């Protein structure tokens, strides 16, 4: 494995509804070890060949799962996340969109002293190409290699993975940190994981307007960066005060502007692409110069 997930990662699915079933199937096809799922009251049965448990604790006990993917609808998502954290699952990936901020603040407070890494919510998940995929990304756009990739966006991640793959740049691990204002593993933390990963040779950081996660990631790379990095910021043309889909993608006052983020990366010596299509070229150039 590169970071977070690899061949030995054993995953359970929380929320095996229509979407959960569809993606569990895709993950299994990819080779991800999907070892169980939770559905209160259906414990002991199986769905699509996946053993079902009443609780996460029971699933962990009986399957040795060390990761979980959460599709539980927003109103019950906090409970699902806290259940996974309580069961001391190493990696929890939350796909769910629209979780109230107050709920995520509670989850974040619990995470402060928990052993779990939460990726998401409202992201596509994470993938270590060729080994394990825990998420909803179309696997065919990804390929194994040395580019670590962090993104706040979903489909933009697929787009960029596709461009990298076509350019012959495989990926070590891609982490979709999620588009909400409060996420479990924000961009700087994800960048740190890749920076410290021996299998990652270069890092691509895809940010968007809103918040200051990109500025903090740039600051971190400026002082601790061990490998070349390339950045892209989506939403450079977005006007202030308008929320661009993601609850986190908003420029309010002088907070969260694309300019500030681009400047931060440039000050850290990290080239910023004007369009996703420029990223592969910048990565190649950066690798040549490092």
């Amino acid at each position: 494995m590169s970071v977070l997930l690899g061949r030995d990662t054993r995953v359970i699915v929380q929320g095996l509804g229509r979407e959960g079933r569809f993606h569990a199937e895709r993950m299994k096809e990819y080779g991800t070890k999907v070892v169980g799922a939770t559905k209160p009251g259906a414990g002991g049965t199986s769905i699509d060949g996946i053993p079902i448990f009443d609780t996460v604790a029971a699933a962990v006990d009986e399957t040795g799962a060390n990761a979980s993917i959460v599709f539980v609808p927003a109103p019950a998502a906090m409970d699902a996340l806290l259940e996974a954290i309580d069961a001391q699952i190493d990696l929890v990936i939350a796909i769910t969109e629209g979780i109230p901020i107050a709920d995520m603040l509670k989850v974040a407070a619990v995470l402060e002293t928990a052993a779990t890494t939460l990726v998401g919510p409202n992201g596509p998940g994470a993938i270590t190409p060729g080994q394990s995929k825990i998420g909803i990304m179309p696997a065919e756009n990804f390929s194994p290699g040395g580019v670590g990739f962090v993104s706040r966006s979903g489909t933009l991640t697929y787009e960029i993975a596709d461009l990298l793959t076509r350019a012959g740049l495989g990926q070590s691990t891609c982490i979709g940190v999620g588009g909400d204002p409060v996420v479990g593993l924000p961009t700087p933390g994800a960048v740190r994981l890749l920076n410290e990963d021996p299998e990652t040779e270069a890092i691509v950081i895809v940010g968007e307007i809103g918040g200051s996660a990109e500025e903090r990631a740039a600051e971190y790379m400026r002082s601790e960066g061990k490998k070349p990095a390339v950045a892209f910021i989506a939403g450079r043309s977005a006007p202030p005060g308008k929320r661009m889909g993601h609850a986190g993608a908003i420029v309010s006052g002088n907070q969260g502007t694309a300019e500030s983020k681009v400047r931060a990366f440039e000050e850290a010596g990290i080239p910023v692409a004007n369009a996703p299509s420029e990223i592969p070229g910048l990565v190649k150039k950066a690798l040549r110069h490092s």
Partner: protein
Amino acid sequence: MKLHEYQAKQILARAGIPIPDGRLATSPEEAEAAAKAIAAPVAVKAQVHTGGRGKAGGIKVAKSPAEAKAAAGAILGMDIKGLRVDKVYVERAADVASELYLGITLDRDRRRPVVILSTVGGVDIEEVASSRPDAIARGWPSPLLGLLPFEARALVFAAGVAPAQREAVADIARRLYRVYGESDATLVEINPLFVQKNGSVLAGDAKLDIDDNALFRLPELAKLKEVSADEEAEEKARALGFSYVQLDGDVGIIGNGAGLVMATLDAVRNAGGRAANFLDVGGGAKEAVVKAALEIVLSNPRVRSVLINIFGGITRGDEVAKGILDVIQAHPPRVPLVVRLSGTEAEAGRKLLESAPLESRETMDEAAAEAVRLAKVPATA
């Protein structure tokens, strides 16, 4: 979701925060009656979902019921930043000695609520934050414990609140935190928080923004939702499960995934054009959704070309293509369409579109360039 000042103040009052006596009015006569009941000088204040109403003339002081009537007559019907004023709040004028700022919002970096208190009130707090950072005190309570008394005291000391008001301000801060928590607020603000000449403390204005994602558990607040004329398209889109923001360019945009749509807007700008909107159909977009999205975008008269940029993950390219074909067969669009499909079933989708009256491109950059070019072609027919 934003609340009006009068609604926010009712919520503050219920939480035990002192507010001036006030009444809502929708006509000059009602404003006159309200001023008579209050029996003191009043402020007549426009109730609109935007800031800066003071500068726009939306707040007037009236010394008599007759003056209040006249003030309401002037304010009602006024246009403030594109919003029509339908309601005024008639409120007893405070006997102001000084003004503080008190607000609670989210600190994304710390992943905690942040309580902000300043003895410089009544102005733009962001301006104070950059010009006089020392005049602002901040505290980050744990969402599991709430704002504790010692934290409220620390804020009051750090902000330099006068000794006579310390207890009252700390108490109001703790009550305001309760409002923040109980109403799933993304922002709650008292600006200004008045200190009156008799030493009492009182909410001069109130702002309360609610997390839309939490409205499902706030039935009372959800009832207060008001949609202004210019937000109607955005609301309609939300009801359909996707997000729409109107902008002022002429290239209509439809895409899936917020980041991809933002990148598409940027690509349009890179190609020298301007996007007419942001529209994210979200994940797993089906035929019907694409159809509805096209209709919304085309309802904007400024749109001169439409760029559809779909990268299939959950969303399948063939389903998107079917949706596009359906809607252009039923209602041939008044402007040219550029479509870029990639990802899951993209090839099947592109094949379906081959004979359709639209432009298909392989990359985002090419598609954006084409859409910008077409928007600049003078309209025929």
